[in-house]
């Protein structure tokens, strides 16, 4: 079981290193409603001192965006690729437009997926330190010693990040190497997702002549870009309200410690509007983005919205609705989404965290008034999180809908340690063939 993820993830890591050497990498956010592609130039020795105002932040001084493109997503439902051919075409559109803007060919892609029913596991492992001082092989040992639960045969490990090390009762170590101690324990956060949607996504990317250089959960990467450092340190939840799913990721001590997703999103709101007003989906989407809201005021009764502008037929029928009616349709659905998020947060034990900060991001968080509604459901500390400013990012893609794309580029420039970044200890690697040989001898002789 362990060997497989090692192989796949190591292959992707090798690709990422190749891309780093070449200096150009693309990040691809395949969402339910849109596909965003950013092309980054990675500059290892970029002189941060030349750029006044940008200090040593979360690593965004290490790269520059040279190409950005967005296209409407197709064939994706609930963040999962359903119609491969359609998704492949959409990815091709986005990549080609970004390449055209960058005037540069890109071969390596880091992608993020929002669907696949992510589930997180907290793992713990413990070993005796070999020689007083903790070495890298001890770290590898303790990571390998975490007993991996049976997460299901049709699931894939997306992230397995060491979040905490304990050395003889001293907890909260981020890097135990070269420290003195006897007993090394670690906590690992493992995130799994369904194999089929992930495999479909990888297949689509491969069909576009691109190499996968990494795969991440979109709720995780939008947390990286939408949460400020203090929030990541003290504990916060990032709610990435996308088109088809709403991702949840909880950060503490700069590590993701929990991730989940609710299969509800902005497209459901659009659906409700389309059904409620009996208009086509594109008209409903337009009404939602231009006039939508969740908090009704007295004035909204008088604010009439013309909705027959682009729909056919139905002459003489009422084709104007008040904004209050629109809010009356949107609000229950948004409330439902937030309630579902509340349930997941409660299940994860969010209330035990030192800080209860909640950051809303993603395209659906642009609904006016959602922060006050969320404050009522999720808790008092709610804010809308815009993605971090990175160099070269066009103004058009700085909105909350692009926090996962930006977060993925931050991750590309500053990769988080995953358990497969450490060499698999020898005894683990050797164990299985040796055991198999012994077994073969026993049964045959």
């Amino acid at each position: 079981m362990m060997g497989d993820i090692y192989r796949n993830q190591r292959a992707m890591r090798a690709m990422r290193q190749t891309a780093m050497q070449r200096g150009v990498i693309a990040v691809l956010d395949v969402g339910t409603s849109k596909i965003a592609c950013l092309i980054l130039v990675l500059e290892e020795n970029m002189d941060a001192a030349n750029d006044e105002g940008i200090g040593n932040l979360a690593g965004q001084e290490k790269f520059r965006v040279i190409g950005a493109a967005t296209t409407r997503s197709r064939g994706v439902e609930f963040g999962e690729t359903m119609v491969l051919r359609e998704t492949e075409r959409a990815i091709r559109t986005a990549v080609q437009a970004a390449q055209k803007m960058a005037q540069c060919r890109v071969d390596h892609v880091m992608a993020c997926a929002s669907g696949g029913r992510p589930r997180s596991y907290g793992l713990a492992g413990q070993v005796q330190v070999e020689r007083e001082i903790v070495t890298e092989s001890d770290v590898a040992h303790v990571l390998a010693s975490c007993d991996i639960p049976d997460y299901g045969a049709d699931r894939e490990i997306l992230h397995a990040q060491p979040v905490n090390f304990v050395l003889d009762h001293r907890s909260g170590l981020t890097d135990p190497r070269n420290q003195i101690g006897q007993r090394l324990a670690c906590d690992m956060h493992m995130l799994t997702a369904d194999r089929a949607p992930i495999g479909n996504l990888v297949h689509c990317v491969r069909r576009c002549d691109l190499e996968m250089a990494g795969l991440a959960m979109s709720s995780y990467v939008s947390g990286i870009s939408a949460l400020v450092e203090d929030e990541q340190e003290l504990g916060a939840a990032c709610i990435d309200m996308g088109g088809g799913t709403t991702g949840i990721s909880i950060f503490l001590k700069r590590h993701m410690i929990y991730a989940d997703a609710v299969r509800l999103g902005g497209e459901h709101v659009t659906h409700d509007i389309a059904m409620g007003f009996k208009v086509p989906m594109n008209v409903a989407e337009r009404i939602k983005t231009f006039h939508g809201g969740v908090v009704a005021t007295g004035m909204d009764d008088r604010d009439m919205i013309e909705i027959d502008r682009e729909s056919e037929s139905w002459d003489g029928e009422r084709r104007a609705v008040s904004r209050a009616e629109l809010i009356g349709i949107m609000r229950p659905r948004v409330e439902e989404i937030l309630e579902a998020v509340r349930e997941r947060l409660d299940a994860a034990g969010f209330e035990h965290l030192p800080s209860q900060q909640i950051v809303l991001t993603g395209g659906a968080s642009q609904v006016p008034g959602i922060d006050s509604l969320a404050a009522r459901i999720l808790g008092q500390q709610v804010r809308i999180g815009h993605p971090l400013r990175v160099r070269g990012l066009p103004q058009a893609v700085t909105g909350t809908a692009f926090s996962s794309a930006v977060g993925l580029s931050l991750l590309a420039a500053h990769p988080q340690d995953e358990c497969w970044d450490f060499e698999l200890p020898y005894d683990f690697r050797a164990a299985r063939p040796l055991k198999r040989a012994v077994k073969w001898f026993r049964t045959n002789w």
Partner: protein
Amino acid sequence: MRTMKDPAPSRLEYRMKRLMLRPSMRPFRRFGMPVIALATLVSLWAVDEGRRESAVAFLSELRNEVGERPELIVRMMIVEGASPELAASIRKSLSIEFPVSPFNLRLADLTEKVQALDAVAHASLQVRSRGVLVVEVDERVPVAVWRSDDSVVLLDKTGYRVATVPSRVSRPDLPLVAGLGADAAIPEVLQLYYVARPIRDRLRGFIRVGERRWDVVLDRGQSIKLPETQAVTALKKVVELDVAQDLLERDISVVDFRNSQRPVLRLGQTAIGTLHDG
């Protein structure tokens, strides 16, 4: 509802675009493709022979028209840096009929023609504003008269022929040289001529002997034989002897300085008689 065209590129188009974005394709995109497109257009147009001919005719007509504009046409020629005789001969050799179109003047050929004249060291031709053809000439200055078997010519300081003169008398101010190969040693003659200032009124000329050394010929049949090397020093000694002791006033027919270690004097007939009688 309006149906929109699928914005997605086809697989082939996508691959082609990516191929074009390869760094190695960059020079091709910048130069190769425009040049190929242009060449294709031009060749497609020029397939028809009639079109080609009409284009050639149009171009030549345009050329004529432009050449005959009053602003451009050349009306006169000025020769600078040449004596009147040389200027006349340059005009004669060029024989251009003005007014003439500047396109019909081949300056390189004309320059060659001018430089072919003996008296011209270097020439440059320019068409200047207001239709003036300017010929700038460095004229060769004659410094010696060379009498050979059949003609008398003037030589410049490098020994190059400048002009033929009917007799030596036409340039009495220049030294006379004679003998085969004298033109190759003109610089030395000039030095000798300079050194011979005190005896210049008696000097008749210089004779090149065997293409290697000089004889200085004076009047009254006297001559000074100079060595191959350091002829100037030798002549200087002779001149000094003459200034100090009136060497050349005496009855001496030849002063032989060919071996400077052992100069020899050949006496005249009278002196020999006097010597024998005495």
